[in-house]
């Protein structure tokens, strides 16, 4: 995989089963984000293949997209929309939602008080929480999270860690790029070091 003139990733193989948590670690610029974007299907690798349930993801992008929640560097929120509207529109594209489902997810990430504020007036940490809420609400088996703990306070980090553990308990899979190893109880995080 190349970024500009620079070869970033080569000779990598990752395998994750249901209930697995893969922790992608490495210094800045080592290609964590690039790897996750390749795995999410946003980037096409020069050589190599990404498969989901034994099928190459390029064969059916829509089916793969439907099985995946991706949290990138940017939170993917519309600044003009309130927290509730953001979830209703962005997650509504993927699955049918009720207002109570949105409110219950917002309470799980401790955002109930700010649910009617436009995303532009939320703090960076609150926007991250809202983006996490989107991941949970999408309810997919595979989570790809790029630095999910950025801007979160310690309560937020704990909350997100618990949510990841719950997702793994339910048989979900998580690929997480982060400087901090997620301390998920009962699940050994496979560590993938990018030199």
């Amino acid at each position, binding site marked *: 995989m190349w970024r500009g003139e620079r070869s970033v990733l080569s000779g990598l193989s990752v395998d994750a089963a249901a209930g697995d948590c893969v922790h992608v670690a490495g210094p800045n610029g080592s290609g964590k984000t690039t790897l996750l974007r390749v795995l*999410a*299907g*946003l*980037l*096409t690798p020069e050589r190599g293949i990404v498969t989901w349930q034994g099928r190459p993801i390029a064969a059916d992008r*829509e*089916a*793969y*997209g*439907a*099985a*995946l929640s*991706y949290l*990138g*560097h*940017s*939170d*993917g*929120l*519309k*600044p*003009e*929309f309130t927290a509730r*509207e953001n979830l209703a*529109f*962005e997650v*509504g*594209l*993927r*699955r*049918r939602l009720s207002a109570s489902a949105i409110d219950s997810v917002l309470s799980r990430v401790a955002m109930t008080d700010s649910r009617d504020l436009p995303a532009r007036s939320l703090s960076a940490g609150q926007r991250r929480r809202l983006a996490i809420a*989107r991941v949970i609400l999408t*309810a997919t088996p595979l989570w790809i999270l790029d630095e999910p703990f950025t801007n979160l306070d310690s309560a937020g980090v704990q909350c997100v860690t618990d949510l990841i553990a719950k997702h793994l308990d339910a048989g979900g899979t998580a690929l997480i790029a982060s400087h901090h190893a997620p301390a998920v109880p009962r699940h050994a995080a496979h560590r993938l070091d990018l030199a």
Partner: protein
Amino acid sequence: MTARTGAMDAVWLMYRRDLVLAFRHWDQAAQPVVFFAMVTTLFPLALSPELGELRQLAGGALWVAALLAALLGLEFLFRSDHIDGTLEQLLLSGQPLALMAVAKVAAHWTISGLPLVLVSPLLATGLGVPTGALCTVMLSLGLGTGILSTVGAIGSALTLGLRRGSMLLSLLVLPLAMPALIFGARAIDMAIHGDTARGPLLLLAAMLVLAVTLAPFAAAAALRISAE
């Protein structure tokens, strides 16, 4: 466990989302129609107040002004979604991207094309277009702005990652809109002179059908490339 949103429901939701967004930025959304009104009212001042003379130029003037006005908002069709990361989420939404592009184009036309069509009879009357030709004015501009929005989506998606994409966007899209300009202005001219404008209007409609059929796929492919 969870019911997936059907493709048509997703299209409707995307369309509504873009309309709501546009209403929250109504000053930006109103730009094309204000531009259109300004340019067409400048013609009588610059050329001649003589209605007979204006009538000769009305078709061309209306079309050029509408084309440039519709081009104004085109740059922002996918740009804001790209900047705030919602485009990435859209690419991974599991919905057919070409259909999502159709929804966005339809919303864009409703915001920037439809108002031009609605004010065009008033502005055309100001340029001396007879009442009998106003229907043709609206029809030809409606089809023309539709073509521009649809074809423009490809250019807008291709120039997404560029910092100053607007110039390139015009260069990409305007040549493709030339056939529409020629037949559209001709339709108005024919109607002004009392002829039936059926021929050029049907040609415009055919172009719109062609654009709506093919452009969304090209735009979807361009979006995937731009998002890399």
